[in-house]
């Protein structure tokens, strides 16, 4: 992975009167990342996103995008950014194509009619280009929103809660679109969400914020692996002996036998392959290994602490 930083946010702070929405948020997004921006409702995600798009002026802190200060080179930076903040809203009395033409015209790039049709096709809205957006479902508007972010071929795409209000099928479609943006178009994507599975499925790096402050930042897999998970092990028999073997081979391992065929261990995720090997080499027939703690548990643990 290329480590060239695209976004550097340092010590961001934003007050609305006496209320501090963002206290101290810092993170770095590298080129090619699908970067998860995670936090519970009211953590300051949307305010941070809005600051990154110059919709809100922070009280303190610095935002550099493409190596330039956002508030000094706003237009130059925004010409290379596509974004959806909260939910994509369009002119309901205009067609999908007319809406895209309006946003394309002020995108800072020459966007041809062919590009508009290709982008509509990319998000699966071919055939609906002449329909008024007022008649679109939430999912269709979300896809049109993503089309709007792509029109001018931006390097960076910022999506604030892009799956909010979508049905499961819609969530899968948007998730698939994000992965295609990374894989087919090599875009850098920032994705904020409180739907943790979304981040887990698509992001390679993430930051967790809570109460307006950065809690932790890093690679999703490293953060996941560094955490203890509850591992449920199902064997054909002799769970008691299996636990004894594992406690001999792995120091400080904690666990308990749930039934003659099942035991549960508190282990770091990166130990799971070794545990599996130890059991197989010890002559145990392993039916299933199931990590029960996910990013969701990790997230709750982090934000509650």
């Amino acid at each position, binding site marked *: 992975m290329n480590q060239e930083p695209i976004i550097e946010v340092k010590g961001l702070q934003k007050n609305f009167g006496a209320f501090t929405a963002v206290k101290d948020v810092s993170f770095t997004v590298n080129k090619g990342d699908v970067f998860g921006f995670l936090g519970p409702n009211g953590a300051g995600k949307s305010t941070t996103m809005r600051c990154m798009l110059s*919709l809100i002026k922070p009280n303190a802190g610095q935002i550099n995008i493409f190596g330039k200060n956002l508030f000094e080179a706003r*237009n130059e930076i925004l010409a290379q950014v596509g974004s959806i903040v909260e939910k994509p809203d369009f*002119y309901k009395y205009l067609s999908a194509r007319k809406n895209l033409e309006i946003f394309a015209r002020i995108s800072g790039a020459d966007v041809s009619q062919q590009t508009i049709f290709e982008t509509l096709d990319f998000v699966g809205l071919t055939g609906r280009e002449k329909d008024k957006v007022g008649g679109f479902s939430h999912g269709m508007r979300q896809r049109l929103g993503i089309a*709007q972010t792509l029109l001018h071929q931006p390097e960076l795409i910022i999506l604030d809660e892009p799956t909010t209000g979508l049905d499961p099928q819609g969530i899968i479609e948007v998730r698939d679109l994000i992965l295609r943006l990374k894989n087919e178009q090599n875009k850098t994507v920032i994705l904020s969400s409180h739907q943790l599975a979304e981040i887990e499925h698509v992001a390679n790096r993430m930051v967790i914020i809570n109460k307006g402050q950065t809690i932790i930042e890093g690679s999703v897999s490293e953060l996941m692996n560094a955490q203890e998970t509850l591992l449920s092990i199902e064997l054909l028999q002799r769970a008691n002996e299996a636990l004894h073997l594992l406690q001999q081979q792995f120091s400080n391992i904690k666990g308990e036998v749930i039934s003659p065929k099942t035991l549960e261990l508190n282990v770091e995720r990166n130990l799971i392959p070794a545990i599996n090997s130890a059991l197989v080499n010890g002559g145990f027939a392993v039916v299933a290994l199931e990590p029960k703690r996910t990013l969701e548990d990790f997230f709750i643990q982090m934000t509650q602490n």
Partner: protein
Amino acid sequence: MLWKNTYNEFIKILAKPRSYIGLAALTLLILIILFAMKADGRMYISFVTASFEQTLSFNGNILNGNLIAFIVLQMLIVHIPLLVALVTGDLLSGEAAMGTLRMLLTKPISRSQVVISKLIAAAVYTLILVVWMGFLALIVGRWMFGTGDLIVLNSDGLVILNYADVLWRYGLAFAVAYLALMTIATLSIAFSAFADNSIGPIVSTMAVIILFTIIGSLDVSVFDHVKPWLFTTHMASWRSFFSDPVPWSAIWESVWILLGHNILFVAIAIFKFKRKDITT
């Protein structure tokens, strides 16, 4: 980028149903006035001229297109500000309410350019309203009622203007009326920069017009120093073109005060909008 966004603004105004409410209402009002004058105009005129008939004799076509245009302007200049504010008061705040302002301001266009492009669109829309009013009042009025000398009742008495001496007065009167309506447009845009809903700026604009008009009409000395500076005092200055001689200095004073208000309101709109946090 300014002209591209101005073009976008025209597309939006053209596509919005509310843009046609003003034109439709204006057309309907003028047609009603024309119909009423055609049906019962003689009685209306005799009511006005009755007090002069002992000393003056009126001959020829008094109820002509020139007089009809004057009556239309007189009647509608009070109502047209609402039709203007209905569209212009919605330009910024309507986008905030719809959520499209958020989308718009994440594009590489400065906030000043957004305000100015909306101002240009508002100016063109207001111009269309005034030109349409002029067409219906003067052209259709002349077609229906013919032409003739214009008799106007002023505070100084009756003014009789030769029919050949009327058109230029109408041209300039409509220009000053346009400037007055642009003051309404810029005021509503300034209110629009503060609000996040469509109705607030429209109601606020009308409230200011009503308040200033009441202050202007109150014969109380405490307001004497304020009245000359209220834009509402100068909104009817178009009437001065139908005086003889034309009071040019008073008209220029009105023009400068209206222009000053326009500049002030645009400056307020830009100042506020540039600093506004977009939270909708």
